């Protein structure tokens, strides 16, 4: 074990420039992936926040008996898409309007009669917060005889759908592109390492080293490099995130950073990259010698 460690450190020192290069490569690949992950994470939570607001409102004819509404509410709650149904009375609607629509506060102030109809507000389950499902629920609500009109903000729900699709597509495309670039860069670095080590591996073989004796230090070295790359990438991600979060850029929403699990995943991924690189580069040469 001591020998393994010493040999790994020696290999590290021996090819210092290449080592630094491959650490930089791994760090860069992970940094970019990390940044991308951060953007995806925050975009997803932003979209989730917006989607929270997708709801269907059924305006009810004035004077509908509350018992009828109660039964209907229970029916609607049983729809697979529906999370909860809330009855908003005429009075509550007016109170809300006075509170929320500041511009019309005066207009709503001295009304003789309440112009606002009572309504049922229906919140959908997270997986159904899109235009198609909201539309279907709205259609079914129109079937109730006491329902005067149904609204679900069709335009913006459709726009939200489009946004989600774009986000998913762009995410996939950029993710793939970065993965490809990282693999190519790492591949080139490995190739250089292979050429650099050919002689050394050959000498080891000639003095009677077994395959695993030769592999061991190289693999350990790869894992260490990957780990360092992962740490560097995490620090860079945190720095960029910190700078961004401090600026806020008028986003008006809280930004999320990786949890410990995601950071560990990043480090493990780095170690895996380093290990794979070493396995490939040593394996190829062991076969030849």
């Amino acid at each position: 074990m001591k020998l393994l460690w010493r040999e790994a450190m020696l290999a590290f020192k021996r090819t210092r420039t290449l080592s630094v290069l491959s650490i930089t490569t791994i760090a860069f690949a992970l940094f970019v992936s990390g940044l991308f992950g951060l953007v995806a994470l925050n975009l997803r939570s932003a979209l989730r926040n917006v989607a929270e607001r997708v709801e269907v409102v059924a305006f009810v004819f004035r004077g509908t008996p509350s018992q009828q509404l109660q039964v209907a509410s229970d029916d609607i709650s049983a729809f697979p898409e529906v999370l909860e149904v809330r009855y908003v009375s005429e009075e509550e609607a007016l109170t809300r309007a006075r509170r929320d629509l500041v511009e019309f506060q005066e207009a709503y102030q001295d009304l003789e009669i309440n112009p606002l109809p009572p309504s049922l507000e229906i919140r959908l389950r997270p997986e159904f917060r899109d235009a198609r499902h909201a539309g279907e629920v709205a259609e079914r609500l129109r079937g109730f005889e006491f329902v005067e009109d149904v609204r679900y903000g069709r335009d913006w729900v459709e726009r939200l759908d489009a946004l989600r699709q774009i986000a998913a597509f762009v995410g996939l495309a950029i993710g793939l592109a970065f993965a490809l670039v990282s693999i190519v860069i790492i591949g080139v670095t490995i190739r250089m390492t292979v050429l650099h080590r050919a002689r050394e591996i050959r000498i080891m073989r000639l003095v009677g080293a077994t395959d695993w004796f030769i592999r061991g230090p190289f693999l350990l070295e790869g894992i260490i490099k990957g780990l360092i790359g992962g740490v560097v990438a995490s620090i860079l991600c945190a720095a960029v995130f910190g700078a961004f979060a401090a600026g806020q850029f008028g986003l008006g929403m809280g930004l999320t950073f990786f949890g410990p699990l995601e950071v560990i995943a990043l480090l493990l991924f780095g170690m895996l990259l380093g290990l794979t690189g070493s396995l490939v580069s040593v394996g190829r040469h062991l076969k030849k010698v």
Partner: protein
Amino acid sequence: MIRFTKVSKHYPTGTAPALDDVTFHVARGEFVFLTGHSGAGKSSLLKLMYGDEQPSSGDVRVSGFHIGALKRDEVPRLRRRLGIVFQDFGLLEDRTASENVAFALEVTGTRADVIPARVTKVLAQVGLLHKAESFPRELSGGEQQRVAIARALVNDPPILLADEPTGNLDERATRGVFQLLTDINALGTVVVMATHDLDLVRFGGQRTLELRDGRIVFDSGKDGEGSA
């Protein structure tokens, strides 16, 4: 110790065989020169001996190993029974002379506490104890080759293979290395040395195998002289 029986070797790229129907035997305690022009097959012959190549046909036996049937995981065991020396020395540049020698012991899993004594002994044997802590670049060509020979000897191999070990050395260093090899041979180690230095061959007077176009065209051991 070494027995070739009707051995031929074809490389996929070459048109003519590298070795063609080669048969010879090297007995315990022998010193054998392999001579011939570049491309005559000297290196191919040595590669077969240390398991770097497999014969296309025929049978090769080295120190009890059947080279034609050698499995990959048996190669290290064969190599530990051989000492191998090259024209370009093959030393690891970032290790001192003693570390280079110790490396061959570490690789074979020798206990750490016995390594220093064995390294010292073998460096003394090649006359380089005073340069034990020097790096290869601080040594002359002759000294580097002595370190390589020390490394080849440290596992007490019954056979030492040397491929043009004096090819990069001046005449004085050549004589020194050759003397060292004959001393090693005198202690009982079989030495097979490929060279095209005919002066050395004449000077040494050992058994000589001459190769031409992959065939043995002369074997001074056939009529008894030089073979043990």
